[in-house]
């Protein structure tokens, strides 16, 4: 590493948080600070989306529509909930917060390849996000986050055009982040950091970045076409004018199926770091896990038609998409098996991040298996557009990705902030999230199976019991998710007490101070070994020693 990096610093280098003016934050190009900017903004969107969800669950306590007043309001609620949660929270959450913060640290770089573009991506995201909030305050949209035509382009008189622009703009911020990650992984690795010495976190983010760069433009273009149709009254998707509404679904899902992997691959990334650390074992089948990420990124592009089994695509297309969807489950399953095998004979400790990670494994598995059920043609015709689908994707997106995100925040919080948090509260929150989540969404599998359609604000009285359970669960879940915001926030008032490596983890990011200095590393980084060199035997010895000291 060149001398110029440190030439300006004399005396003890300041950590990246020490400068605190507003200007220093808004003009920062430090990847860690940009990560923090994202952390704050996605949290705000998460709260907004969560409030909407709460209102919906309140409405669904009773079979009659009574809380929100009109079906139209309800439609706007679930649409805004979906748009905010997907485009403004889940897609950027892990990559832009943890990815931004950790990717350069993990490969021994001083920053991402394009620090200014990184900051730009946050501004672009904020422009899209503020438009989103503006839409929310001025009546919202009622098309569902999927913007299906011809409803969105011809009939809906809500703010489809503005929403289209907002989603379009936010898409660019993903593309910029993706570009930055890809180039960084290619060119910024420290000497000795070969591809197969990279932590799996980096592999997963690389795969995610590929999807961001390849799929997001297709979403952008389909949304623009909807906007054009709406604005000029021309028939790109309007059947009366020779258009084909199903074409929109093809274009939309060509993005949005891969996009579900934009949301879940970063979850895999986090879990692959947490599990070996708390099992004190090297990850089982490193290369399989690494290649599984890339395989998912590739195969994910070939299965979009499984969202359209009942949209009138040909039976043969349906059959092909069904088979391909089964295939895409294989790499996901490989990962779950590898994590499980890592746990086997490990020396486990159940700190908060580990609890979240274990929760992830259980919930993601259920989500994946029900995905296979949905991918079977005959079954999907029965449960398509019911609560079964709602439960399926929440198991993956919330049970999977959000759990992983929270696990990751807890795992790296000491590094990010330099502080520890009260372990007991952490464990309690993990427990509440797990229980609350299952109580909220498991009944929805049953509801969907029994035939309750999604996106309605009234339902038949016999569904009430399950719906009340779901609403009760949502309350527990909300408490579980608010808690970390409070105790992590409060931990900032303590002095920096975390130490460099509180978990005894491997990985370059743990070998530097918490919080890191602006340029991350003081000396040239040279990598000489594989990641995850944990030793269960040593962990056992340490444990026995601790017991001994304790009893003596």
């Amino acid at each position, binding site marked *: 590493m*060149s001398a110029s990096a440190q030439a300006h610093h004399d005396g003890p280098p300041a950590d990246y948080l020490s400068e605190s003016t507003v200007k220093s934050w808004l003009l920062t190009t430090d990847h860690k600070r940009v990560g923090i900017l994202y952390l704050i903004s996605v949290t705000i969107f998460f709260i907004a989306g969560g409030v909407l969800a709460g209102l919906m669950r309140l409405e669904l306590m009773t079979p009659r529509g009574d809380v929100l007043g009109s079906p139209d309001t309800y439609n706007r609620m679930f649409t805004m909930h979906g748009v905010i949660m997907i485009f403004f929270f889940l897609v950027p959450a892990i990559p832009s917060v943890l990815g931004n913060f950790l990717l350069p640290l993990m490969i021994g770089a001083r920053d991402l390849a394009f620090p200014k573009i990184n900051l730009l991506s946050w501004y672009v995201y904020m422009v899209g996000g503020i438009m989103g909030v503006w839409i929310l305050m001025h009546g919202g949209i009622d098309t569902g986050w999927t913007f299906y035509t011809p409803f969105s382009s011809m009939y809906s008189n809500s703010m489809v055009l503005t929403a289209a622009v907002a989603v379009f703009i936010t898409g660019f911020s993903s593309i910029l982040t993706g570009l930055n990650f890809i180039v960084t992984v290619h060119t*910024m690795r420290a000497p000795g950091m070969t591809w197969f010495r990279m932590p799996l976190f980096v592999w997963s983010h690389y795969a995610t970045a590929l999807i961001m760069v390849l799929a997001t433009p297709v979403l952008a273009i389909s949304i623009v076409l909807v906007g*054009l149709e709406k604005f000029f009254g*021309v028939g790109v998707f309007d059947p009366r004018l020779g258009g084909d509404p199903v*074409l929109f679904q093809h274009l939309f899902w060509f993005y949005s199926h891969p996009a579900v992997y934009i949301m879940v691959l970063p979850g895999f990334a986090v879990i692959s770091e947490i599990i070996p650390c708390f099992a004190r074992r090297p990850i089982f089948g490193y290369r399989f896990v690494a290649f599984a990420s890339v395989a998912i990124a590739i195969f994910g592009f070939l299965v979009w038609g499984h969202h359209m089994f009942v949209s009138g695509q040909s039976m043969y297309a349906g059959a092909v998409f069904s088979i391909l969807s089964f295939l895409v489950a294989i790499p996901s399953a490989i990962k779950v098996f590898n994590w499980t095998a890592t746990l086997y004979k490990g020396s486990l400790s159940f700190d908060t991040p580990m609890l979240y990670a274990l929760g992830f494994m259980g919930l993601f598995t259920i989500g994946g298996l029900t995905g296979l059920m949905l991918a079977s043609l005959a079954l999907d015709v029965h449960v398509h557009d019911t609560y079964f689908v709602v439960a399926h994707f929440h198991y993956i997106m919330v049970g999977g990705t959000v759990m992983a995100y929270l696990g990751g925040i807890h795992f790296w919080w000491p590094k990010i902030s330099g502080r520890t948090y009260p372990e007991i509260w952490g464990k309690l929150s993990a427990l509440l999230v797990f229980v609350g989540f299952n109580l909220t969404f498991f009944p929805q599998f049953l509801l969907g199976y029994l035939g309750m359609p999604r996106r309605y604000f009234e339902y038949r009285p016999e569904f009430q019991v399950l719906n009340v359970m779901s609403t009760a669960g949502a309350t527990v879940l909300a408490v579980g998710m608010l808690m970390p915001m409070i105790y992590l926030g409060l931990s900032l008032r303590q002095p920096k007490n975390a130490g460099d490596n509180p978990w005894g983890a491997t990985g370059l990011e743990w070998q530097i101070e918490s919080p890191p200095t602006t340029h991350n590393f003081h000396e040239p980084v040279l990598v000489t070994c594989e990641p995850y060199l944990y030793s269960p035997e040593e962990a056992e010895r340490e444990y026995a020693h601790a017991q001994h000291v304790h009893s003596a």
Partner: protein
Amino acid sequence: MHTPSTSTAPDSGRQILLSHFDDLEQQNLSSTLGMWFFLVSEVMFFSGLIAAYAVYRGLSPEAFHLASRHMDKWWGFANTLVLLTSSLTMALAVRATQTGDRRAIVRNLLWTAVLGSAFLGVKVFEWKAEIDHHLFPGKHFVVPDHDEEHLKEYLEKTDGHVDPVKLEREKGRFQLMFVLYFFMTGVHAFHMIVGIAAVVLFALLTHFKWFSGYGQTQTESLGLYWHFVDVVWVFLYPLLYLIE
């Protein structure tokens, strides 16, 4: 490791190394690779449009054929030549950054901008003609009479009867071709405008010696972008103008 970077004055012709890179090679590689992946992303953007085009043209070849006859293929051809020439001047500009010939860089960049603007001029003139013929999609769109006759003939069954629903659909597709035409050429023109602005800016920056190392890395990335925009046109031209 590598020699420590000494930030040199721009004038000396050596590039400045940004502090998060180790050496110039890494820095150049990063920016070129970044541009390549950006272009891959752009390809996907156009591919959505081309997919839509392919679907509708497959469904209504006749309507697309009739619509395409309204585009002037000779102007289109001339424009293609103009663009290809601009790619040549762009390539010469990039070459000049490597040899360090500042005047040649500026001259070639300016030529590129002139040729690009000429392309846009012709394009605007073509659009105007089409709009005057009520071929801009939307409320004022009219399917010309003789095209409607053709479509009727095309749809006529043996008993001389024309299904009105099918006729409407074909007319819709006729308009769709213009939707796609205006949109694709419009998006392309937007890319050209961005490109020309950047080229002029780069010419100025080079002239005023703002770049270190003759802006080699930066101009190379701009060149990639410019060639890409050209290649897009080389695809669009046959798709839109030359349906036979």
